[in-house]
């Protein structure tokens, strides 16, 4: 068990170091730090559970290992989206054979956050114009949230149907492969790095499996 935890912690630590170096090279270290800072509440609660509560049982070392794993799992995707435009990601996925519907689902999910934010702003402005108090004490703010939820959710659901129609009008359901307008440059080194990472992933999984078997 201890061996397994330690191994998981070291792997996660290595992933963190690689992510940090990559972020430094891409001038995205600040964004990576912000993504890490967003995990602070989870880290604190994990520390409390593991260090103070008998049910946690892992102690400070266990809490740190859990935090490392969490960071190892969340920072690489954060780095991916900090360094890669969504459009580039989607067109590359499509060029590499992912179906148009799957690509659209990913793209729509990525675009959903800013779209929902914009819609929420519109709804808030509209409700404020009708006298809703959305500022002041937390009680007032909480009271102000409820009238915002219904128009936001219902409006988003209603929009789904219109968007589906709009896609059909643009021949989205046509058979065959879509045209990909722009391919990103892909150097020999990038290809080699991807293969090496895939190899490391497989090796890590196998080693982890072996460690678990030996520990038993």
């Amino acid at each position: 068990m201890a061996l397994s935890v330690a191994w998981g912690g070291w792997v996660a630590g290595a992933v963190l170091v690689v992510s940090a170096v990559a972020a430094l090279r891409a001038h995205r270290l600040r964004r990576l730090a912000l993504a890490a800072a967003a995990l602070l509440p989870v880290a604190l609660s994990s520390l409390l559970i593991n260090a103070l509560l008998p049910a946690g049982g892992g102690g400070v070392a266990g809490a740190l290992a859990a935090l490392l794993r969490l960071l190892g799992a969340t920072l690489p995707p954060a780095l991916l989206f900090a360094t890669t435009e969504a459009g580039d990601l989607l067109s590359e996925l499509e060029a590499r054979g992912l179906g148009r519907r799957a690509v659209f689902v990913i793209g729509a999910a990525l675009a959903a956050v800013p779209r929902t934010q914009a819609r929420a702003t519109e709804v808030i402005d509209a409700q404020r114009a009708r006298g809703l108090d959305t500022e002041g004490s937390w009680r007032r703010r909480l009271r102000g949230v409820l009238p915002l939820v219904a128009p936001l959710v219902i409006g988003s659901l209603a929009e789904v149907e219109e968007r589906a129609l709009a896609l059909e009008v643009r021949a989205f359901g046509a058979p065959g492969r879509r045209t990909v307008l722009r391919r990103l440059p892909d150097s020999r080194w990038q290809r080699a790095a991807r293969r090496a990472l895939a190899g490391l992933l497989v090796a890590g999984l196998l080693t982890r499996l072996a460690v678990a078997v030996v520990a038993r």
Partner: protein
Amino acid sequence: MIVLERASYRYPGTPAWVLDSVSLKVGAGEVVGVRGANESGKTTLCLVASGLAPAVVGGELRGHVLVDGRPTVELRPHELALRCGVLFDNPAVQITGLHRTVAGEVAFGPCNIGLPVAEVHERAGAALAMLGIGHLASRDPQHLSGGEAQLVAMAGLLALRPAYLALDEPTSRLDPERAALVAEAIVRMAAGGTGVLLTEHDEALLARLCTRVVEL
């Protein structure tokens, strides 16, 4: 030619017929105007004439709707899109949100049908030029004014080069200058052989553009 012969339509799950025995013809190069009060079924007429209803929307259609001699109920959605484009009254939902530039957004339809890259660029450029919005090509589609978004949505349809267009109040969100651009584009499209079904409240526009005007 688009032909509606005593076409009646009701949406799924509703007992009322939104269209009741409507007969209408739209020939190549013809601009047929439709006027009517709010809730008179203008938007539904556009959906039915293009075949989206019932093919995509569902619901029940009685009577006959033919596009170039083929019943719309026998065509698949992407086949309908290549024959008749529909511009909805809310252009914001017709912007896919998947592209960083207006040029990419307009190219979405031609990409969907797998045209060669050169032809996709040619069609997108021509559509933008026809609407006088070539200067928007590199802009972010998410940051357009309502009027600009309307024109971009229309360009997206034009890029597919359908034989017919159903335009649902295309100038309702435009300033007079942009509305004039759309009007000019409609005239050019009709001169090029595109049949246009145009629903509008603007009597002056209907009188100026339409070969004939029908009342719903």
